[in-house]
């Protein structure tokens, strides 16, 4: 199948994305990447980072379904990972209904945690 990414001649399809073991579902247009589709659906099951395939924050595993990918940083998705369906959500485009699960990276020692703890720090001041 030739790439549909950026091809205006191809009409967008809408696919259903199911999150494994959770009740969350959202619709994903084939014309936007999966992370943007999740944001447009006002869901938050995938972490949001640079939205450019570089930071690894939106790492997921696709358990079922077809998708097309753009280039992803090999720092966070190895060739072996990719063969197992591990991808960055900001770089994939749904080509069928999908079942996904979040696959965050193991965090390095010293990794600065997210909003909850930074809010706590702010409250302490």
């Amino acid at each position: 199948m030739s790439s549909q990414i950026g091809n205006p001649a191809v009409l967008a399809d809408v696919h259903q994305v199911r999150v494994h073991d959770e009740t969350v579902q959202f619709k994903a247009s084939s014309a936007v990447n999966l992370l943007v589709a999740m944001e447009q659906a006002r869901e938050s099951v995938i972490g949001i980072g640079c939205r450019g395939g570089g930071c690894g924050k939106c790492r997921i595993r696709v358990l079922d379904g077809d998708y097309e990918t753009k280039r992803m940083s090999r720092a966070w998705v190895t060739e072996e990972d990719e063969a197992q369906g591990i991808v960055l959500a900001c770089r994939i485009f749904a080509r069928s209904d999908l079942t996904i699960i979040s696959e965050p990276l193991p965090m390095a020692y010293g990794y600065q945690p997210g909003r909850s703890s930074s809010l706590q720090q702010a409250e302490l001041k």
Partner: protein
Amino acid sequence: MKKGVMRPGHIQLRVLDMEEAVAHYRDLLGLIEVDRDDQGRVYLKGWTEVDKFSVVLREADSAGMDFVGYKCVNEGAVEQLRQELIEYGCKVEDIPEGELNGCGRRVRFDSPTGHMFEIYATKEQTGKWEVGNRNPEAWPRNLTGMKATRFDHCLLYGPNIAGTIDLFREVLGFDLAEQVLDGEGTRLAGFLTVSMKAHDVAFIEHPEPGKLHHASFYLETWEDVLRAADLISMTDTSIDIGPTRHGLTFRGVRRWRLPLPGPRTGDLGRGAAGQGDLLP
């Protein structure tokens, strides 16, 4: 003591998709595309910069920074610093003239934080973009996007920032402008200057070596910053933080900061936005 290093001169960034990266740096930030080379690298600069380029983009399979280069007053200073870097224990590599289009010989060296740095003295001077030297108009009429004026500094993350800060002070002649210490006196962040700027490079302690947190570009006024924020909103571009101010090296106008399409810093996610600025 000044050792002949003048200022940050160029930064080479790895990007995953050159077309997307050029749209970001040229069309959105408003840098000027000045050249491309046979490796496919794209050269850009801010319109006020006299030297030929300050940003080089290289397509690669991971995002981040290849190196940042500092311009020295002359080739004699580069040669002297090269010897001192070797004596200090750095691994030094000589990059021949022309490896970057329009740039003279460069001396590349490693550092305790895992970053690669360069010093050089010679680069083709193509002049301020589109205004010239003879009865120049105030600014070019056909700038795009945020109209970034010049490369300003970068913030780098890595382990043992004390070691890299010592290298910059003792060998390269940078001054420590400000620092952040924890309760035990361990240095968590250091801001260094080699010019009249508040900082020319900054380091924050982080376990992963060789990381780029951000490269920043100068906007002259608060209005320019707000207009840039409008463009971020209008183009649905990911934003890390801002517009805001912070206390360290406070200079009145705090730039917003975009996550570059690429570099991961450990705190780039929306959830942790701003920790790089606020944590100290």
